[in-house]
């Protein structure tokens, strides 16, 4: 039986993601854990997260889970979700400037404030909240997912990877921004697959079958 660990470091609601993975992973043993040994025992790991990056990085360092994530990334498939994706980068402008895990070169910045809505001309809202179309690369995690399929997003900051080759999905919201990154064993998405209906479940199912690079 395959096993999957969802990293619990006190940042947000892990029930939704666990329920979605249960739904697609009948043959997968799922655990939500903060215990390094148990996380490192799993075949695959999901690194979720909501909230502010400053608090997220503090918690990861305090619990030693930052090093666990580095070890996971070197040895087995890791799926970063939302804030979990941003934390993989080198640096975020959020929380007064925050050094992140640096597993993927690149930075995290806030959406500009003055982007006009193409429909009404009013200022686009930040957070970027709702269903947006992801123009995706060719990667096993996109298998069976239509090009420009919509996924559910909630975020005010977005990542910009330094290497073009790490970009696995792009969205448009006032500007073009990276909505998925992939590098070796790492795959990370800005949207919430657990809240993105069929397409999101398909991505999670693909992750449960993926053996990394």
């Amino acid at each position, binding site marked *: 039986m395959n096993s999957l660990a969802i990293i619990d470091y006190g940042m947000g609601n892990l*029930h939704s993601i666990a*329920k979605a993975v249960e739904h697609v992973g009948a043959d997968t043993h799922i655990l939500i854990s903060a215990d390094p040994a148990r996380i490192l025992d799993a075949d695959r790991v999901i690194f979720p997260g909501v909230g502010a990056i400053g608090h997220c990085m503090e918690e990861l360092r305090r619990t030693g889970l930052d090093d666990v994530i580095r070890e996971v990334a070197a040895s087995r498939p890791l799926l970063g979700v939302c804030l979990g994706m941003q934390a993989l980068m080198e640096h975020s402008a959020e929380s007064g400037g925050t050094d992140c895990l640096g597993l993927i070169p690149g930075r995290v910045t806030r959406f500009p404030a003055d982007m006009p809505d193409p429909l009404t001309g009013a200022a*686009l*809202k930040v957070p970027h909240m*709702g269903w*947006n179309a992801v123009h995706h690369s060719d990667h096993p995690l996109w298998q069976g997912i239509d090009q420009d399929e919509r996924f559910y997003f909630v975020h005010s900051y977005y990542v910009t990877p330094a290497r073009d080759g790490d970009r696995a999905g792009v969205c448009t919201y006032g500007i073009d921004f990276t909505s998925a990154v992939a590098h070796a064993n790492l795959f990370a998405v800005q949207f919430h697959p657990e*809240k993105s209906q069929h397409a999101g479940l398909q991505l999670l199912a693909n992750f449960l079958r993926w053996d990394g690079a």
Partner: protein
Amino acid sequence: MTLAKRIIPCLDVDAGRVVKGVKFVDIRDAGDPVEVARRYDEQGADEITFLDITASSDDRETLVHVVEQVAGQVFIPLTVGGGIRELADIRRMLNAGADKVAINTAAVFRPEFVREAAERFGSQCIVVAIDAKQVSGPGEPLKWEIFTHGGRKPTGLDAVEWAQRMAAYGAGEILLTSMDRDGTKSGFDLELTRAVADAVEIPVIASGGVGTLEHLAEGIREGHADAVLAASIFHFGQHSIHEAKELMAREGIEVRL
């Protein structure tokens, strides 16, 4: 392609059943909330909102079970409102599988509650629900006030200023209901919606008064709402969510089809 405008069906739940009253009378039974939620998910709802209109605390537990069941089979964002007064209420709903909670009266009584909730759980799951009524007379500059208790109690709070304050306190979204229009099927209060939507940086969900599919499109185009919420128009099979989205798409509004 860019961000889609959202259509959110709302289920008013009383003692475990979906009900819909017009101006709080003539409550009609509209079915089992789990079945109704599944149907809306299949029709392409972008999110689902449950509003608990139950009076007793026993029946509150019923909604927790409803949310648990829905969250195990419907994988789109779920919001729960009604009776959210303490951090423990939020924790209970999130644990049951809700993604957001809507805070209404408790925010009026103690605005700091919204700040505490956003700090504890993140802004992304804190929706502040605002029930507003027009209080300006004919010929006066438009003004709306916040009311509680189903529109019976005035608070003296200006709706636009209140929305800005709630955004500053960490609300992730505003659910704006016109108490003048709620249940009338005469369309959103577009001036109110636009006044609030243009005044805050966070998304605004328009609510109250939808009687036709065209009303939904108006809320977005003229009200500048980011999402539109409706209940009875979908409950009794009058229209499906898919129909609503097709109409909006024909009018050039980007939707998830």
